């Protein structure tokens, strides 16, 4: 845990005070709990307030539950027809705007990613209810596409007017017989952020799809890769490496995924969790119901990738697999290292700030370490305390009034399909050898002392932080990008990757090194002032002098 380095150029206590100074008293009190100065404490990390309601009018970066459910978790699946029940906007804005890449299986493989389907609710649907229109839309989608599954997503007004989308889905499913129709109550106002949508998506995918697959998976070293969405091809690169190592990824949740992958996920022997926030619910449920243990992995960063591969190797305890992993690492790492050494002189010592969704603000610190860069401030839009402080805080977490209505589903061991992948003795031995199951230490533990960890950063604080701390690079999303760049600070989008990527795995690390070198050393940052602005004095000079 790199707590040794102290960042001394600025005083975090003063920075925090200045961030809060302009707020009305009530807002300042609340924000004070979401802005944390990282400091070492005995056996414990400091406590942050997270996953609480957004302050109205503050210009948050956050989105909604629908975005977390449809946009994030279900959006990337190519062969489920996603039908949005609501007015047109929600469907339109989630149409191809997250870069979940897809290689639909062959010329005849189904791929509905390019289609945005909506019931386009009108005033009359709000007044008289939209259930009939929803049923008709499901029928029309079925007649046109004959998909194996149709997923229905609720938007804000659906819950308010009382449309029973689950009943409609059930009726249509029974009517079709060969098409699994199910629904998500992911109204935008539920919870306080995208996070509630993740949870709702996890529950419904688990309830309606996982474990229903008929296909028997017999490959060796079967894993699920959970919480990897194949942005810019990240998942392709991870799959390339896994395949090379002889590890079979039978289901990715949910980058480049298919319905059948979800349906057979219960047949894996290990779940590997990338994005803890969005998918830890499925990871837990797979363990409880089917006996599949899970470990936290991170394929962002070359060293982290090698470490994660070794973890998987250690779990399977197969000498041949471990040897293959070592040879893959030995083959891939040197060329990554060559590229790293090339950019290192130009990136070392530079500072970065990361404010990204619910996992990347942590994962990408690995890559910045490899570039010799310091992360001086970081935070999430919508992560929970366990993502900041580690899962050990979970038993003490209180669900507040705003998130109380998000369904928790109780899962029991499946009477037929449950079988523990390892005996208690084997598990104990693995743990003794250092393997951490069902564990995640969170972001804070990996950050230097006296850095600032900020939850639900807003526009005002972003600008103020840049003004006070003058980072060499700011990482966040599209809404933040151009205001930060107007200030003359390079900005890297870590949601969309600015149309770049992949950044995962070994190839991804190289792409990222080059990209960050390009950004922080671009000539453009030297052009902000015109010559006459830099030297405004008027005196007669002539070019031939």
């Amino acid at each position, binding site marked *: 845990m790199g707590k040794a380095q102290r960042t001394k150029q600025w005083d975090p206590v003063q920075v925090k005070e200045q961030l809060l100074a302009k707020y009305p008293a009530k807002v300042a009190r609340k924000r004070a709990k979401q802005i944390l100065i990282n400091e070492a404490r005995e056996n414990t990390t400091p406590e942050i307030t997270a996953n609480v309601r957004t302050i109205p009018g503050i210009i948050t970066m956050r989105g909604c539950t629908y*975005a977390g459910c449809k946009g994030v978790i279900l959006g990337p699946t190519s062969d489920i027809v996603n039908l949005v029940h609501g007015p047109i906007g929600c469907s339109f804005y989630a149409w191809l705007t997250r870069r979940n890449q897809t290689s639909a299986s062959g010329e005849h493989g189904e791929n509905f990613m390019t289609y945005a389907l909506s*019931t386009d609710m009108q005033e009359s649907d709000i007044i008289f209810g939209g259930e009939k229109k929803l049923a008709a839309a499901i029928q029309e989608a079925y007649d046109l596409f004959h998909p194996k599954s149709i997923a229905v997503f609720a938007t804000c007004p659906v819950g308010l007017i009382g449309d029973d989308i689950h009943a409609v889905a059930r009726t249509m499913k029974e009517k079709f017989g060969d098409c699994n129709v199910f629904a998500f109550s992911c109204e935008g106002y539920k919870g306080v952020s995208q996070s509630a949508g993740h949870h709702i998506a996890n529950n419904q995918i688990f309830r309606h799809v996982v474990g229903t697959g008929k296909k028997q998976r017999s490959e060796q070293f079967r894993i699920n890769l959970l919480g990897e969405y194949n942005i810019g091809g990240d998942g392709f690169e991870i799959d390339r490496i896994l395949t090379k190592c002889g590890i079979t990824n039978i289901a990715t949740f949910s980058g480049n995924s298919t319905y059948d992958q979800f349906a057979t996920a219960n047949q894996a022997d290990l779940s590997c969790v990338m994005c803890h926030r969005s998918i830890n619910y499925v990871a837990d449920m797979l363990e409880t119901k089917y006996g599949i243990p899970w470990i936290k992995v991170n394929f962002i960063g070359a060293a982290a990738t090698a470490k994660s591969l070794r973890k998987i190797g250690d779990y399977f305890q197969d000498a041949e697999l471990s040897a293959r992993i070592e040879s893959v690492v030995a083959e891939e790492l040197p060329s990554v290292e060559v590229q790293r050494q090339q950019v290192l002189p130009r990136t070392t010592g530079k500072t970065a700030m990361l404010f990204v969704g619910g996992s990347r603000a942590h994962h990408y610190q690995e890559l910045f370490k490899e570039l010799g860069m310091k992360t001086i401030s970081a935070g999430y839009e919508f992560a929970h305390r366990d993502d900041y402080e580690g899962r050990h805080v979970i038993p003490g977490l209180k669900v507040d009034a705003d998130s109380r209505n998000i369904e928790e589903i109780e899962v029991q061991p499946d009477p037929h399909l449950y079988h523990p992948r390892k005996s208690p003795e084997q598990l104990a031995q693995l743990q003794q050898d250092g393997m951490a199951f069902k564990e995640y230490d969170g972001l804070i533990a990996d950050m230097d002392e006296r850095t600032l960890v900020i939850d639900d950063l807003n526009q005002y604080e972003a600008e103020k932080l840049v003004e006070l701390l003058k980072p060499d690079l700011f990482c966040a999303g599209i809404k933040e990008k151009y205001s930060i760049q107007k200030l003359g600070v390079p900005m890297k989008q870590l949601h969309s990757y600015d149309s770049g990527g992949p950044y995962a795995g070994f190839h991804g690390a190289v792409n990222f090194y080059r990209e960050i070198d390009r950004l922080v050393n671009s000539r453009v940052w030297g052009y902000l002032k015109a010559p006459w602005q830099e030297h405004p004095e008027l005196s007669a000079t002539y070019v031939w002098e």
Partner: protein
Amino acid sequence: MLLKHTPEMISERSALMINPAKTCQPIGAMYAALGIKGCLPHSHGSQGCCAYHRSTLTRHYKEPVAAATSSFTEGASVFGGQANLIQAIDNIFTVYEPDVIAVHTTCLSETIGDDLPQIFDKAIKENKVPAGKTLIGASTPSYAGSHVTGFANMVKAMAALAQPGGEKTGKVNIIPGWVEPADMEEVKRIASLVGVPITLFPDTSGVLNGPLTGVYSMFPEAGASIDDIKASGGAIGTLALGEWCSAEAARLLDSRCKVPCSVLDLPIGLQATDRFVDTLRIIAGQSVPDEIVRERGRLVDLISDMHQYFYGRKVALVGDPDQLIAMTEFLVTIDMVPVHVVTGTPGKKFEKRITDLVAGTDHTVNVRAAGDMFLLHQWIKNEPVDLIIGNSYCKYIARDEDLPLVRWGFPILDRQGHQHFPTVGYIGGLRLLEKILDALLDRQDRDASEASFELVL
């Protein structure tokens, strides 16, 4: 194939919209509000809408788009969002210090029936609105109309600020419609060339095409000022450009402040620009300067020079009604043939207007209001075209059907230029024709055999 599940055979759909040719009201209201000086748009709903609308506008302009939200929770969604909005108003004026907050609503606050004027009253009574600051509001339910309707509703809310019986300003109000910042600049340039003092609202030029200087100002020195908008009640007259976007606001000025209005098409293309300049000249009693006559002549010159490449070429169009009407007329003017025209925005008048515009050609036109891009694609499969003109989503159809594409309209997420170079006026007409020719001639070059590959075209 990217859209491989789209069948050639067309089956009528009653309930399912696929690949919409519209989006929802609030984004239009947000765009319009950004055209008020010192204004922070505010979305009264759950925060996802605001995030989506800001993201889409940002992707289109590659510029910061600031807007706040009431961030409804489930509790507020059931019991009303008054407390959220009042708290937001207080926080916004304290932290961000805009001169104006322009509030629009979403399907959430509209369904539960929040009453903006009543909440504004309460905010003022509770001293949450500092002296000299303004609150304006527009009801923008997402389940009616489209983004175009939302734009029109916010512009109407601006017009409602105009004070009747005020001083005569000698100015002409121009409501430019949903056009790009560069288009707003071009409208101002034309008016200034003709010598007509105008009040343009909204005006996003200088707001959404700003410079990179090392300084970020959430409220740049640009946009229509509240004082000017208030004084618009004393104008000589109002030109409303675009029936869908601007007419209601102009009619409100007419009925409330007795400012007579003309509703014109967007000045896109030769004839619509002619009508715009002519009306402006007459209303202000000015003669048209040679500079504008020269610009017009250059456009006519280009049409004549390259007519062989335009003549008889079939075009599929998708976008917003005001734009499509003007573009259809322009294409007919240069002897191109609009064969499929789709807007997602409802309005029966649209279909009649397009049908009338192409009536003089030998082709019939497929036209649909409240249609979608799935239908457009099917029409193209049934009757192929030489060119598609529409927003970035058209690139999927263009690639599948191997068609040249001119990006035009909203949103353009994958190319640059629309925020900097106008498509209105004669100069804008030149740019549109350049883009159309580039697309057609690039395709001719790509497809020509080596023997027929030409240097001079």
